[in-house]
């Protein structure tokens, strides 16, 4: 079971690496922030899988902290003016 959890985590990590392509390509700030959202969710999932694969229950708390603060980045992001400076 543990190696199954680990390989699921590995799969998600590869997923994340592929998602980096969007971060690389952009083009707009909104697209980059979306990639960040994807990474946030994936990181939470990887942390949960690792918590059980390595029998470190404290990692569930780490995942909890992550999701709780996930919205802050978005709130901070929408404070940015648009590129054409309408704001």
């Amino acid at each position: 079971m543990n190696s199954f959890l680990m390989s699921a985590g590995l799969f998600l990590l590869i997923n994340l690496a592929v998602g980096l392509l969007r971060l690389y390509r952009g083009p707009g700030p909104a697209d980059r922030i979306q990639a960040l959202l994807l990474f946030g969710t994936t990181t939470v999932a990887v942390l949960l899988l690792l918590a059980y694969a390595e029998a470190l229950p404290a990692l569930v708390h780490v995942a909890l902290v992550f999701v709780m603060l996930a919205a802050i980045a978005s709130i901070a992001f929408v404070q940015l003016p648009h590129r054409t400076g309408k704001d």
Partner: protein
Amino acid sequence: MSLLSLIFDALLGLGLLWLAWRAVSSPGLFASVVLFMVFGFVMAITWARLGAPDLALAEAAISAGLTGALLLSACKAALTDTGNDNELPDEPSTVRRRWPAALICTGLGAVLSIVMIQVAANRAAVPPALAEAVTTHPLDNPITVMLLDLRGYDTLLEVTVLLTAFLGVRILLEQTELPRLHAPRATTPLMVDPLLAMATPVLLMTALYLFWTGMEAPGGAFQAGALLGALGVMYTLTGRFEPLDRTPVLLRLGLILGPGMFAIFACLALTWSEWPLAYPAGATGAAAVAIEFTLMISIAVTLTLLFSATPGLHARHMGVRHP
């Protein structure tokens, strides 16, 4: 399993390297900032893989919440300060001295890697005195034992560093009129109000929970304080806290509470022991909890003020709403 872990770790390492490379080399400010935020996420997974949940917790609270908000606000400030409405500004000349720097850094990287691999390959045992002190201590989590007891100075210095950084910021803000940033946009109650209404109790409870479990599991004053600080930053970002150009008395008290308690306790300790910062026999747990609690409050207040880059904050009345 071990091959799997090896691939996992190698992928993590490659991811970290690619993200770091892009963060320092991509021309745009915003792209670099987002890349650095993702770098923090991957770093948290790395701490988890290395079996250091304490660090993963701190990294999660800081890189998921605080650093992102801080750097994105820096992007906003870069726009506002330069009066440049068109584009997040790139640097005038993006890169210089590329080849000599690359040569030096390649050499340094190679040497460092070789040395680090060799050092890390030698196994070393925990010094016996330390191992004994950790195992016989009433608090269970070895990291907490270290933080509270064997190196109480460590926590004191941590909170002092934060406080010093805030004082530095405050001095700078008194020196000059920085252009006022635009008022927060996300003040519309439509989606942010329900979020804050739910996030506030959840974050408060989780912070207390982390504080409490910090006694026997990873967690503790810093992680809990960072969560509370993130809540404060959330309130500032959405305009629920408004900047002031002075520091109200209550906030001053909050700032000084943790270090002050620490200092008083250190002096009092001289009455029952010949060492400052020694716990009274029989009341170690209670004294530790009291000190940690005040530290948590100070860390939260300091982080909120430091990240909002204002001397003070006050709650805005949200009583009457205009639809």
